[in-house]
Each structure stands twice: as C-alpha cells, then as structure tokens.
C-alpha cells in the first residue's frame, strides 16, 4: 500500500510548481494555469486525508466537490476578464496592465 506521506509530498511539490508559475509567468492565462495546478494539489490533499484518516466522514469529498465548483467559476470569470482586458488594451501581459500602479 502507498503511505500517506507520498501523497502529501506529491501534493506539496505540485503546489510549489503552481506557485512558481503564478509568481514567474508574464502571461495572465499562464498565471491562471498555475492557479489550476495549485487547486488540483489541494484536491489531492483533501482526498488523501479523507481516505487515510477518516473514510467514514464524507466532508473531505464534499470539500472536493466545492473546490471543483470554485475552480470552474474562477476560470470562467478570469478568462472573461482577460478577454475584456485584451479587447480594450490589446495585451494580456500582467506587467503591462498597470493603470492602478500610480
């Protein structure tokens, strides 16, 4: 059987890779991809804790369902924002969208 630690370390590594993407990419869509990776690692963690520590308690799965819904809505709103910005400013590079900087 696979120990719990493998899942947790895998999820931690995936979260850190996603965080690196969010912090280092220029393109706003690539930043959203990093956020997707981070949300997925959270799902892995939730399901691993549900399966290993308390399989009779269904809350871990319910949380995963809600994370799925939140991820879907976040991507829909985020991509709509990106397309709207692109239409006005012809760019989606995060450092060129600096109207609020001053």
């Amino acid at each position: 059987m696979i120990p719990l630690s493998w899942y947790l370390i895998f999820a931690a590594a995936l979260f850190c890779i996603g965080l690196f993407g969010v912090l280092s990419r220029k393109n706003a869509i690539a930043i959203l991809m990093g956020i997707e990776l981070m949300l997925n690692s959270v799902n892995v963690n939730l399901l691993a804790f549900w399966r290993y520590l308390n399989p009779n308690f269904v809350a871990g799965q319910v949380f995963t369902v809600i994370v799925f819904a939140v991820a879907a809505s976040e991507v829909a709103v985020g991509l709509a924002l990106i397309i709207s910005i692109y239409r006005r400013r012809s760019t989606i590079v995060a450092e060129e969208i600096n109207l609020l900087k001053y």
Partner: protein
Amino acid sequence: MTPLQIIFLIVAAITLGGALMVVTTRNLVHAALWLVLSLFGIAIIFVLLDAGFFAVAQVVIYIGAIAILMIFAIMLTRRVAKDSGPQINATWPIAGIVTLALFGGLFTVLQNWQQIHVLPPSFPEGYDPLQQLGVELVSPNGYLIPFEVASILLLAALIGAIVIAWSKTK
C-alpha cells in the same frame, strides 16, 4: 515495492514533469497541452485514492471544460508579433527561491508529523463511499446548503462572465 507503489511513482513523475513544463514552456498552447497531461495524471492519482467519481469529474470538468476554455482564450488573445519575447519575469530567481523555501518548509513539517506513514484503513463491509456522498449532498442534515451555495456560485460566475466579456460596441 508493490505494483501500486510503482504505478504511483510513475504517475507522480509524469504529473510533476507536466506541471514543470506548464510553468516553463514558452509556447502557451503547448503549456495548455502539458496542463492536460498533468490533469490526467491527477485523475489517475484519484483512482489510486479510491475516488473514482472524482477521477471522472476531473476528466470531464478540468480536461473537458477548463483546459479547452483556456486553449480558446489563448487563441482569442494572441499577439503574433509580440509573442516571441521571454515569457518569464525578470524576477524569476526570487520566485524560485520562495517556492523552494516553501517546499522545504512543507517537507520538514510533514517529516516531523507522527501520523505521516499511516496506511489506509479498509472500508467497512457494505460501505459505498460514492453512495454515501450522494446521500449526504442532498440531505438537509448533511451538506445540502454548501452544495446549493456552490451551485449559486457557479450560476453567478457564469452570468458574471457573460456580463464582463460582453462587447458594448455594436
């Protein structure tokens, strides 16, 4: 090493490699395709965790909807002339240091935690986790209200996405 462990290691390596390609590759369409590979790997991880329903939901929602939506957005927002520059911030070494520090911290905390090497308990006789989840999601004593809140959130997000992306010029 049991066969399950070998499968886990292979899938985890593919998933992490795909994730690394997502955050480092220059071509955004390729990044989206690597994201699809990575999400497939996570679906297999869900199967290994006895959560088959979530593996199917992962394939349908993440790969079928979210990744395809991202590919559409990439195609709608392309700047052919300016796509050739670097795709990574100048401050990426700082981001790398922060990320490595976070991973090191998480790793240390996990190593010092007593229950980390626990093995999964077997399900009781006649217990079906999926059936239990279905009952709890629609029972008023269970998680009906969070479930409905999630659906309202989805509805609001879809209406919001339409309003935001609406073109006002005729």
